[in-house]
């Protein structure tokens, strides 16, 4: 790769040719404030916030030696006017000054102009606390305005899509959302109307911003112009605790941050991982967290008596399950697990069925809903975990198990995190069973039929690992505590194994992973900590991510930074 010498703030550095000036400055720790620039989008250079001072060595007259500075580099002739750092690339011998009178005056001026029509409703605006305009106004702003005229009135509280609200007065015309819808989501419904101070962001007539990736525009909006209907006025962002975790809506395993406060999840936002989801995620996955805060959560282990379910203790409930597993022949037992379980849970399930000699065990497969962007066709987040740990194909034995239950050959069923009614079983068939135990997050029809109901933890309440559709091992983190007495599934399984087969020496989820790493080839040498925030590739599935493919292509062409 060609490297060029560039002086940033008086220090010489080497950068690959073609690096944007803003990226070069960022790499050496000189952050250039910006609004419109986004590494995954084209750079129109319309916010003017990233103006910096630039200079090149003057071309020497023939025969004249170029003047050298103390580092032996040609002396830079500084340009009298600033340039934008986001759309220009570095060149040999170039000098950049991000600090200094010219750059600072420019930023001050741009800030003041941006704030001319911006309403001062930060106490109401949801963006407050993570607003670039607020931050840069504090860092580079003037503190007061020279503007004495009336501010321009623009539409407020505009309904532009089912999940998004637009406040045009807050918009600073960076056009990030327009570029996102056009370049990434291929749904160009946004655009500017009017001119000058009256420039207004709007949806094209008769169109709405309703594609499955629309909420990404809220993430990239540097101000509070686009807000999410779901998160709007729910909680100030400075109260939120961010936990790095995974989306479990589909097999893609998009990296997310779960924002929570006091055991309540308020929102999920994508986290950059250029091997999985770039910096985006779909709206379906993003909004699929409300069940975590649901009133229908199971909070206590329950046993069914003649007059309905009654709360019991974990010990009694688990003992009852173990007793039921012991009471019949292994061939009369079925274990229906879930492809939404973590590797650790799948491993413990496997350990349980092996120690009991159970042959009828499977997960419920789900497919469909894949698109040309991020969503995978496999709706289970950990189907590859089933393949890796169990060595079986998800859904291979399920028809046989269902047939067994319907015929009465199977008398005891342990359902882990799956609603069997939805998996194709009849209520009547389930009622025939001598014993049905199930673990669930929410109350449902299967729980209603179960003899023992075990309350389990949701994805936001547990730690563990999953393998996504491209074969990447990634980590879930605990964002909130489980409600009531609900427990992590791996703890439930461990207790069942303990009650069924005696001590197993497992005390933490790390122990489970350690044991699993010893048993499963692809995990050898790994620990939960070593997976890291971005995951490690453990399988080759050959599956491609369409959105990432296109992003790489554009990056190769130099359209985006990537």
């Amino acid at each position, binding site marked *: 790769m060609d490297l060029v010498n560039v002086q940033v703030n008086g220090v010489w550095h080497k950068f690959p040719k073609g690096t944007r000036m803003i990226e070069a400055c960022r790499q050496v720790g000189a952050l250039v404030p910006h609004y419109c620039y986004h590494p995954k989008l084209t750079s129109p250079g319309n916010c003017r916030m990233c103006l910096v001072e630039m200079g090149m060595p003057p071309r020497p007259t023939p025969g004249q030696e170029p003047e050298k500075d103390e580092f032996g580099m040609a002396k830079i002739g500084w340009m009298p006017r600033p340039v934008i750092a986001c759309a220009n690339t570095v060149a040999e011998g170039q000098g950049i000054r991000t600090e200094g009178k010219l750059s600072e005056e420019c930023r001050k001026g741009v800030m003041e102009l941006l704030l001319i029509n911006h309403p*001062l409703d*930060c*106490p*109401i605006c949801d963006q407050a606390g993570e607003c670039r305009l607020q931050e840069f106004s504090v860092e580079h702003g003037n503190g007061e305005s020279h503007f004495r005229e009336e501010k321009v009135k623009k539409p407020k509280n505009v309904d532009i899509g089912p999940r998004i609200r637009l406040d045009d007065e807050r918009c600073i015309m960076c056009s990030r959302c327009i570029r996102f819808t056009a370049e990434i989501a291929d749904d160009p419904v946004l655009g500017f109307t009017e001119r000058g101070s009256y420039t207004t962001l709007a949806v094209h007539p008769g169109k709405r911003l309703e594609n499955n990736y629309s909420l990404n525009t809220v993430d990239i909006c540097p101000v509070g112009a686009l807000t999410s209907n779901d998160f709007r006025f*729910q909680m*100030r962002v*400075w*109260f939120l605790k961010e936990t790095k975790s995974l989306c479990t809506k589909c097999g893609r395993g998009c990296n997310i941050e779960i924002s929570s406060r006091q055991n309540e999840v308020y929102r999920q936002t994508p986290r950059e991982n250029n091997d999985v989801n770039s910096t985006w995620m779909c709206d379906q996955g993003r909004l699929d967290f409300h069940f975590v805060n649901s009133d229908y959560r199971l909070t206590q282990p329950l046993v069914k008596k003649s007059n309905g379910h009654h709360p019991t203790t974990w010990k009694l409930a688990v003992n009852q399950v173990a007793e039921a597993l012991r009471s019949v022949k292994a061939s009369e037992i079925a274990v229906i697990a879930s492809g939404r379980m973590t590797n650790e849970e799948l491993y413990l399930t496997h350990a349980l069925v092996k120690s009991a000699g159970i042959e009828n065990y499977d997960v419920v497969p789900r497919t469909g809903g894949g698109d040309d962007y991020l969503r995978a066709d496999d709706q289970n987040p950990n189907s590859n975990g089933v393949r890796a740990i169990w060595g079986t194909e998800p859904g291979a034995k399920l028809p046989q198990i269902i047939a067994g239950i319907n015929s009465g050959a199977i008398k005891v069923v342990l359902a882990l995190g799956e609603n069997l009614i939805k998996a194709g079983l009849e209520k009547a068939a389930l009622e025939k069973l001598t014993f049905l135990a199930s673990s669930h997050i929410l109350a449902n029809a299967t729980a209603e039929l179960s003899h023992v109901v075990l309350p389990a933890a949701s994805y936001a309440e547990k730690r563990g690992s999953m393998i996504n559709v491209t074969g990447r091992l990634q980590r879930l983190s605990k964002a909130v505590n489980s409600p009531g007495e609900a427990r992590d599934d791996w703890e439930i399984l461990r207790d069942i194994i303990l009650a069924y087969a005696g001590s197993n020496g497992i005390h933490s989820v790390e122990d489970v992973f350690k044991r699993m790493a010893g048993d499963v080839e692809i995990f050898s040498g790994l620990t939960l900590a070593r997976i890291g925030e971005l995951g490690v590739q453990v399988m080759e599935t050959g599956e491609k991510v369409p959105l990432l493919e296109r992003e790489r292509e554009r990056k190769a062409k130099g359209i985006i930074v990537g």
Partner: protein
Amino acid sequence: MATVVVQRPKLKWHEKWFISTLAKGLLITLGHAIAILRGKKKVTMQYPEEKWDANLPDHYRGAPALVTDEHGRERCVSCQLCEFICPPRAITIIPEEIPSTDPWAKVEKRPRLFNIDMIRCIYCGMCEEVCPEQAIFLRKDYAITGLSRAEMVHDKTKLYEIGGVREGLVNKWNELK
């Protein structure tokens, strides 16, 4: 090392042996006792019967309360800065959107729930200081009592009841923007 030479007073023999000093001290305390007994001096205020309310200074920090403006609009827009700044975490706010039918719908946001736990409140006045909307003020109410913990939590109704109307403050929302 700097040495400070302390000048001790030179004591006479009777002072050294506590004779005159003892008498002097006893006379001082006796003087105070007699002054009080004769009712010449009065320091203590008999609280529930006598009150100092009229003399409370303007900057007195009593119970925090919410205020409405002269149009009856609740000034609080539920920005939760007071909840954030509150050192003992006495304030709990749950925001909500103002419905479009409301005459002040353009303000967009208001508190659905605004609780101040007066058992926790330390009357520091930070909420008043941080409020960008001039919606919360420390009033002169100081005798905040209750028979249960729940009674000591001031909800929105109670807070507006204590706060009342404050006029002549910055009227940000009365203009168009």
